[in-house]
């Protein structure tokens, strides 16, 4: 990491509510800033805040901790309930962060609108109070416990890591988009084997905040793609020392999510968008390496919810019926031909080869780069292909032990790395 630059915060200022500016002017430095992001999370956030503070009291009792509740305008008295839970002795700032219209449509499992503004605000507070790090946790994470404080911050405090990202224990078909696209593509591009779990619990060092987070263009693109994928990609692409904390299962107070194609367009769009900016970084990267971890590793769990594979295949075939003109534009002729051939398989014998899936993803990345179509439409056209590949993955592995699913996903990740020259050659040709 580069050395921190002198405190400069002109860009952050407009996003700071007046109350925060006043507090910043009156406050002493602190060691750790803990941000709890909420929006009508009165039933869960007080416990989250309390266990995090208790965790710090146990693991680093000598450190000064400031708890900041960034709230998007709850109607259920979330901030008051947090204050009651943590007690009057704790340093606590209830902050209502501004919610910009541009970020309203962004998908977030936390259901907190204006999440990007909140994180920018927390980063600014961390910098201004010269804290060592900032820990950010979603207020709806019911599984947060005292260990999280240490797991998410000790790599920074004790080992000089720049950023700690979460790794949750998951069941075999949980996070299929992450496991089949976001994580392996990020790994192939930047050479870091991140699990890419976007669960709303992460920590950033003061250096990471100063030299990377606050210096980013905090405008349209974050509003377009959502902060979680953006930060994760940043950690992967930049020369940052990243650690993953094993946080156990993630249990959250569920909130309505957007439709599948919107989730897909935003999360995949984030990576594709960042590929443009980091081309000089990802192009020469070959292979990949593990990142450091802390905590007890947990493999995939066995539990499987109700999965409707036939509907997924039907969704894929609907794509074959409705989206062929779009796929014809965005996919390479060879890829397109292979996709067409998949449509004739019987449901039980339906197979979508991993290599073809990777080829599809790379073709989409190229089409996005070349702006062959309106980008949102292009990204959404991936939905039916994703359903097809996911159905195939489930059909191939559902009778096998969970270990085999892990092996299959690892093979897929290697496929992404192996086929990276396919992407690079076409990207160069396209630029030429």
């Amino acid at each position, binding site marked *: 990491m580069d050395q921190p630059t002198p405190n400069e915060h002109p860009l952050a200022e407009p996003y700071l509510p007046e109350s925060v500016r006043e507090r910043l002017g009156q406050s002493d430095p602190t060691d750790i800033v803990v941000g709890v992001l909420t929006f009508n999370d009165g039933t869960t956030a007080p416990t989250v805040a309390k266990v995090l503070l208790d965790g710090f009291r146990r693991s680093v009792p000598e450190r000064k901790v400031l708890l900041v509740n960034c709230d998007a305008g709850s109607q259920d008295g979330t901030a008051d309930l947090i204050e009651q839970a943590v007690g009057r002795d704790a340093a606590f700032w209830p902050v209502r962060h501004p919610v910009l219209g541009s970020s309203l449509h962004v998908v977030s499992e936390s259901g907190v609108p204006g999440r990007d503004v909140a994180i920018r605000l927390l980063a600014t507070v961390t910098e201004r109070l010269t804290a060592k790090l900032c820990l950010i946790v979603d207020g709806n994470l019911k599984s947060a416990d005292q260990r999280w404080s240490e797991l998410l911050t000790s790599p920074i405090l004790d080992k000089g890591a720049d950023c700690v990202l979460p790794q949750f224990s998951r069941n075999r078909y*949980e996070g299929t988009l992450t496991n089949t696209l976001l994580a392996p593509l990020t790994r192939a591009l930047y050479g870091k084997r991140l699990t890419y779990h976007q669960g709303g619990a992460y920590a950033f060092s003061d250096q990471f905040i100063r030299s990377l987070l606050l210096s980013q263009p905090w405008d349209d693109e974050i509003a377009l793609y959502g902060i979680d994928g953006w930060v994760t990609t940043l950690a992967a692409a930049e020369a940052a020392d990243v650690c993953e904390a094993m946080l156990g299962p993630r249990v959250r107070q569920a909130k*309505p999510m957007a*439709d*599948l194609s919107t989730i897909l367009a935003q999360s995949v769009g984030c990576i594709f968008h960042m590929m443009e900016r980091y081309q000089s970084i990802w192009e020469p990267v070959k292979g990949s390496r593990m990142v450091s971890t802390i905590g007890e590793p947990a493999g995939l769990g066995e539990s499987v919810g109700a999965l*409707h594979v036939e509907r997924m295949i039907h969704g894929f075939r609907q794509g074959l019926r409705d989206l062929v003109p779009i796929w014809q534009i965005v996919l390479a002729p060879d890829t397109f031909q292979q996709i067409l051939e998949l449509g004739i398989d019987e449901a039980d014998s339906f197979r979508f080869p991993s290599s073809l899936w990777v080829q599809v993803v790379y073709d989409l990345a190229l089409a996005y780069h070349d702006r062959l179509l309106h980008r949102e439409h292009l990204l959404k056209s991936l939905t039916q292909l994703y359903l097809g590949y996911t159905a195939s993955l489930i059909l191939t592995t559902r009778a096998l032990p969970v270990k085999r699913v892990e092996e299959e996903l690892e093979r897929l990740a290697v496929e992404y790395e192996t086929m990276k020259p396919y992407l690079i050659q076409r990207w160069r040709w396209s630029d030429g």
Partner: protein
Amino acid sequence: MVSNDPFWYKDAVFYEIHVKAYADGNGDGIGDFQGLIGKLDYLEWLGVDCIWLLPFYPSPLRDDGYDVADFLTVAEQYGTMQDVKQLLDEAHRRGIRVIVDLVLNHTSDRHAWFQESRQSPHSSKRGFYVWSDTDRKYGKARIIFIDTEKSNWTWDPEAKAFYWHRFFSHQPDLNYDNPEVRQAMLDIMTFWLDQGLDGFRCDAVPYLFEREGTICENLPETHDYLKDIRRRIDASYQGRILLAEANQWPTDVRPYFGDGDEFHMAFHFPLMPRLYMGVRSETRDPIIDMFTHTPEIPPNCQWCLFLRNHDELTLEMCSGEERDYMYYTYARDPSMRRNIGIGRRLAPLLENDRRKIELLHSLVFTLPGSPIIYYGDEIGMGDNLKLKDRDGVRTPMQWTMDRNAGFSSCDADRLYLPVVADALYGYQAVNVESQKEAPHSLLHWMKRMIAARKQFPAFGRGAITFLRPANGKVLAYLREHEGVVLLLVHNLAGSAQSVELDLKGFAGSTPVELLGEARFPTVTERPYVLTLAPYGFYWLNLMRKPADGESYGIEQTVL
């Protein structure tokens, strides 16, 4: 290439063109097929699915080509049969279909059949027309062109008999009681279908037969013949359509669809003036009333909706009071009136108010039916009231701000009609080239709306349910098709309006605006509040949260 969907016309956007008015390929001042071929890229760019060509047959042009002198070839000034074939090939290559006007009811008095017919009572073609020794027969039939015709009978001194004509006296009606006529017209249709045409817009279909004691319109014999035509076309040609011009009430037009075995499509004439009435009176009632009086049509049939065409804005299907209102509000100057209607183009009718132009287009794009755009209306072309009859709305297409609006390279005095050159609508101000350059022009707006419409078959095929919010200035309706629910909300008023819609049945859905894909607040059990700008409208897709029966099981854990 054109699609194989036999019901393509249900989703299609049509575009009406007069060959002579569109583009002049040989510089003689008259539009022609070569000129039109050169503009197909533009039509493809715009998103047009089907071109409707006005009559291009040889004609003395006393009724702008609807007085046909020969059905089996092309008027010399427009080109050759080879040009027609080239047009069809080039259009089809771009996925555009072509239908043409076919005047079934009558011919020109210059047609060889009439010339032969009038010569002698013993002529082989005598029976092709309706001759009489008296002008008293069929007295209950109305006179359509009351401005110019005093009777439906005209004395022919050469034949020494009266001949029957429902339109101009130079357009004698064919005698469909004669099987030779019926066969001859069928042969003409198959001739053109063999050339590759995709169908016919059949002119003046209610008047084919005459029967004493009736108004000589919509007779059973007419339907029998039309069904015969349809049978023969279906038997030999795939995906071709018949579009009926029947300026009648929907209940009277309904029989022209038969049981799905007569016309594929028919114009919805009475709706059109009521769209204008609704906007001017700022109330949805005339529009909803018209649909209340519109019967169901067979599932393989479709209405054609339009705002303007090559004729006057017809007020035949209006009551006297409604007609007065339309004249008072849209044609106070008598020079704007033609026959029973208003001889103006869309933009001048709406005082060039872009908001109203967009609002009315939004209505014809979203109400049940397939929209037809009259050439030039996509750029807001004006008219020329000084020209006779309906020529004022048939002036050359305005392509550029160059000489003759880029329509022709000839001297201006050789143009078939002068280009519109006034300060507001003149070709220097209103033309395709400049609007293509301006991303927010009416032309680009039309292109975007056409594209948006094409994404959702519900517009062409969906059922309609009118919502009836308390605010009567707002017209809101649902279009539903195969699980897709579109909510269309229009403010007919020139002031901002708020409306509360009862969408309880869609609680949990998220309205997504079709053009910008912006997500609106989720629908709940409570009234759904929308605010609309003056003449504003929304096209919203009510995206349902997947029910258990529809989910894939991975949505909540996809990341």
